[in-house]
């Protein structure tokens, strides 16, 4: 599988509108000036896949992920990110013939919702589906900004445990 599309609404700097980022297999580069929103795309991806650690998404509370508005635009009342995984290989049985759509929303009361192809579900159900694809929202396949050098500072125990958990 691969990520076909990430859709943002009201999330961080994406404004109170729908922004769609279509992706392909292979090597995609994301470029742009400082502060334009590149890492926010990644935060959105982590958020939608059920990442719990707000700190790693640079938010103190989940509500900080909601677009705060600009000089000319009002804040959003909720933040939602949807990730679409390709299912052409039927890696996700139960969704045969369609792609897997994972959605997560948080409103300004701090209340959160997960959806699987439009149907409300729990975070655990999301994680189960992701596990079929060997995807983990806290996985090592996410190297966040500033974190690459830290990998060499892993303790020997943690490194062994990491490999243990792979098998």
């Amino acid at each position: 599988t691969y990520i076909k599309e990430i859709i943002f609404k009201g999330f961080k700097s994406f404004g109170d509108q729908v922004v769609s980022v279509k992706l392909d297999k292979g090597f995609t580069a994301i470029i742009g000036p400082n502060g334009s929103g590149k890492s926010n795309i990644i935060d959105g991806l982590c958020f939608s896949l059920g990442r719990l650690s707000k700190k790693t998404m640079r938010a103190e509370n989940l509500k900080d992920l909601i677009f705060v508005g600009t000089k000319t635009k009002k804040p959003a009342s909720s933040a939602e990110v949807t990730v679409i995984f390709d299912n052409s290989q039927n890696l996700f049985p139960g969704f045969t013939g369609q792609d897997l759509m994972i959605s997560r929303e948080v409103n300004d009361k701090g209340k959160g919702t997960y959806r699987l192809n439009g149907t409300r579900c729990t975070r655990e159900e999301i994680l189960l589906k992701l596990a079929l694809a060997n995807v983990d929202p806290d996985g090592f396949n996410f190297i966040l900004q500033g974190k690459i050098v830290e990998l060499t500072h892993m303790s020997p125990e943690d490194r062994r445990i990491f490999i243990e958990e792979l098998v």
Partner: protein
Amino acid sequence: KTRQFMRAFNEINLHFSEVFTKLSPGGISKMILENPAKPFEGGIVIEARPRGKKITSIESLSGGEKTLVALSFIFAVEHFQPSPFYVMDEIDAALDGPNVHRVSMVIKEFATSSQFIVISHREENIVNADKIYGVSMKDSITDVFSIKMEEMEVAPGDKSMEDM
């Protein structure tokens, strides 16, 4: 269980050395079990030696060298148990030009089997992408748009991006 672990360890170790030598030509690296007889009672230590140098602790390697070691480890694990996608946010920040190029070539190689989403300010990396997305602030809101490789004349994040 130990046999499973050792099989994974040995295979990852093999790829770890392979990739490190690609990123740091003439360099040698390996993972070492602190307790080879009883692996689960010790950890895994990394030794890395760039060409011509003698082994120093991984701590005393430079920022760029540590980046190459970390990436070699990630790619080695990828070889063993691929993830469908990888997200790399400015992993080339500490690298000099030639090292950015080498890392980019390894990403390109692994991108035939996994999806790589790579944020970068470095031209030597971006030019190897199959697809480029530009991100900029429009009325103080993030705008995302496709960029054709031919439009990429100047180092990105530079003057060309400011004009957009």
